[in-house]
């Protein structure tokens, strides 16, 4: 077995990589790298190598010592309780032992009587399977199944480790009869590297896609906030104009009164009230400033596009839903409604919006007319009808994320040419 000692060392290092991957799944807070950590890792590596070389030691003792050493590594690398660390390392070895048993039994089916075979190929294959299993475990643990790339890509990725098993098996069979151990060593090393690289690449690409998604959502949020800021500015200018105008109107009325001309003064006041010249057109005056400004801002767009809008808001002026979430939810839903009605003829465009606080929950209902056809996406919500569907179409997903923050409910019910979205939120 000494011919394979180089391979053994590499296998031990691969075990270390596996262990590190495992520990990182749980995302505990990391401690600063200290000398103790280095010690623990060295002890662990030494133990592994020794366990590999000598087959005489009591397996149970080896197992317990392994669990303990992993526990110590965990404790020295992360902020963990002893119990948690012990539990994690126990689980690690439980999974690994199960995998080794399965691999061993599978290899037995091949009825090869070479014990070195079992040792080398078996341990390599089981390490590889462990590596795979950890990746799957991590996906499940982080609930990333629907965010990463679809199953089809995963299947293609699996071809790599599966082919690796076949190649390792055959390479061993071919080279064991000769003295050429270097060949097997290098082949195995390369294959392990290829596997590691493939999975690493897959992970990084998945992360990148996730970051891009988040960025799009942030951009949208920024956009809405900017619009809101513009609206605030306009509102302030309006206040100044109103103050200026009121002085003018009052002065005007005062002149009439001083001249003793009561009927003229009354006419002027009637005129003012009738034309309501003091306020700009507002569709929503609930007193809740954020919602009012959001809806009124959109209303200017709505009006311009010839959409009839009906708005009923019945909420206290302060609710414990964050304004950024309100921005995302109301902004996106209104945008979707506006876009949908655009595709209809002028007379048939309408939006009904209602926001109220009922039974301690915030209920938002928005209805709009639509053309009746919806495209379905493979995952997530509908396909966007906008010209660049892969770039657009994250509106409803953003809304869902905000709704989930409050343990809420998002219901979409298209029916009878009326598209209705209902959002229920439970203020914290």
């Amino acid at each position: 077995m000494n011919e394979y000692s180089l391979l053994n060392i590499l296998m031990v290092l691969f075990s270390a990589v596996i262990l590190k991957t495992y520990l990182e799944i749980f995302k505990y807070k990391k401690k600063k790298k200290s000398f103790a950590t280095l010690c623990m890792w060295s002890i662990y590596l030494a133990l592994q190598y020794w366990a590999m070389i000598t087959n005489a030691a009591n397996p149970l003792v080896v197992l317990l010592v392994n669990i303990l050493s992993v526990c110590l590594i965990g404790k020295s690398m992360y902020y963990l309780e002893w119990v948690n660390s012990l539990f994690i390392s126990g689980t690690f070895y439980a999974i690994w032992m199960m995998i080794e048993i399965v691999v061993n039994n599978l290899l037995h089916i091949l009825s090869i009587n070479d014990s070195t075979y079992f040792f080398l190929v078996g341990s390599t294959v089981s390490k590889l399977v462990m590596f795979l299993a950890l990746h799957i475990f991590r996906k499940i643990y982080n609930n990333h199944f629907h965010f990463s790339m679809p199953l089809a890509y995963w299947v293609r990725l699996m071809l790599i480790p599966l082919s690796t098993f076949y190649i390792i098996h055959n390479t061993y069979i071919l080279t064991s009869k000769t003295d050429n151990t270097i060949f097997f060593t290098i082949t195995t090393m390369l294959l392990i590297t290829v596997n590691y690289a493939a999975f690493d690449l897959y992970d990084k690409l998945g992360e990148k896609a996730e970051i891009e998604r988040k960025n799009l959502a942030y951009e949208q949020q920024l956009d809405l906030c900017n619009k809101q800021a513009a609206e605030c500015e306009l509102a302030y200018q309006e206040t100044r104009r109103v103050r200026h105008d009121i002085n003018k109107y009052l002065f005007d009325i005062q002149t009439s009164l001083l001249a003793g001309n009561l009927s003229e003064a009354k006419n002027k006041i009637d005129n003012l009230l009738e034309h309501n010249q003091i306020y700009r057109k507002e569709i929503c005056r609930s007193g809740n400033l954020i919602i009012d400004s959001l809806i009124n801002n959109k209303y200017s767009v709505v009006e311009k596009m010839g959409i009839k809008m009906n708005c009923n808001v019945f909420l206290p002026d302060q609710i414990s839903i964050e304004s950024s979430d309100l921005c995302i939810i109301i902004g996106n839903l209104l945008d979707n409604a506006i876009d949908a009605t655009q595709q209809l003829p002028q007379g048939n465009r309408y939006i009904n919006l209602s926001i109220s606080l009922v039974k301690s929950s915030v209920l938002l209902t928005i209805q709009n007319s639509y053309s009746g056809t919806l495209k379905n996406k493979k995952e997530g919500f509908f396909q966007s009808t906008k010209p660049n569907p892969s770039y657009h179409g994250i509106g409803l997903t953003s809304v869902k994320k905000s709704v989930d923050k409050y343990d809420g409910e998002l219901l979409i019910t298209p029916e009878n040419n009326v598209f209705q979205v209902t959002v229920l939120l439970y203020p914290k």
Partner: protein
Amino acid sequence: MINIAICDDDKTITSVIENMINVIADAQQINVNCDVFFDGASLIDYISHGTFYELIYMDIEMDRIDGIHAAEIIRKNNISTLIVYISSYEKYLKDLFKTEPFRYISKPIDSKQFTDTFLSAYKRICQKAEYFTFTYNKYLYKMPLRLISYFESRNRVLYIHTINSSSDQQENTLQKCYKKMNDVEKELVAANQRFIRIHQSYLVNYEYIRSISFTAVTLVDGTKLQISADRQKRVRLLFCNMLSSDSPNMQQR
């Protein structure tokens, strides 16, 4: 015949409202009876002596006892009364919502909004004029559904909780009958009554729910009832649908 109370210290407003109601009632052939009050105290007094109003128009800013406080007192014993607040406030106070008002009308009163509100209220009232009949000990009982907060089934007996019964009351003081919960549920659903089966043993009146979470329902008197795990999603959706069917302005489909 619907009993309506109008409570406002401004005589012009009360007469405007009374007139509008009569106009609508005539047009729609609805039988109404309007009582006018000029302060909250007299309204509370009348109600505590047994008169039940299906609909109350309440002004918020009154002199002696303001509208919201009056409503709170009335709500203690009358969950199903529809309260419509009238006010000239530009914003809604948080206390307002504790009384679960039906709608809000701002002064000056817009006649279309008023008509819409009235008709929605009427529709709601019609839905609720139902009774729960059952026999017990050879007597036939008829209990208005609006008084029932929830049904509880325990040891094959169906207990009927009303607003005046607290949860730790003795079994022998609650009304009971031997109907099966599933049958009662079917009967109520068929009559479009809003009762939610949150648990094998509990059938709750939607009107009496103050708030709801994934795992439990809190009633207006503070009683907390568990929602069984397999019904959680269904109850959520049902609650959502019931809430949204109350929304104003929405086209009902």
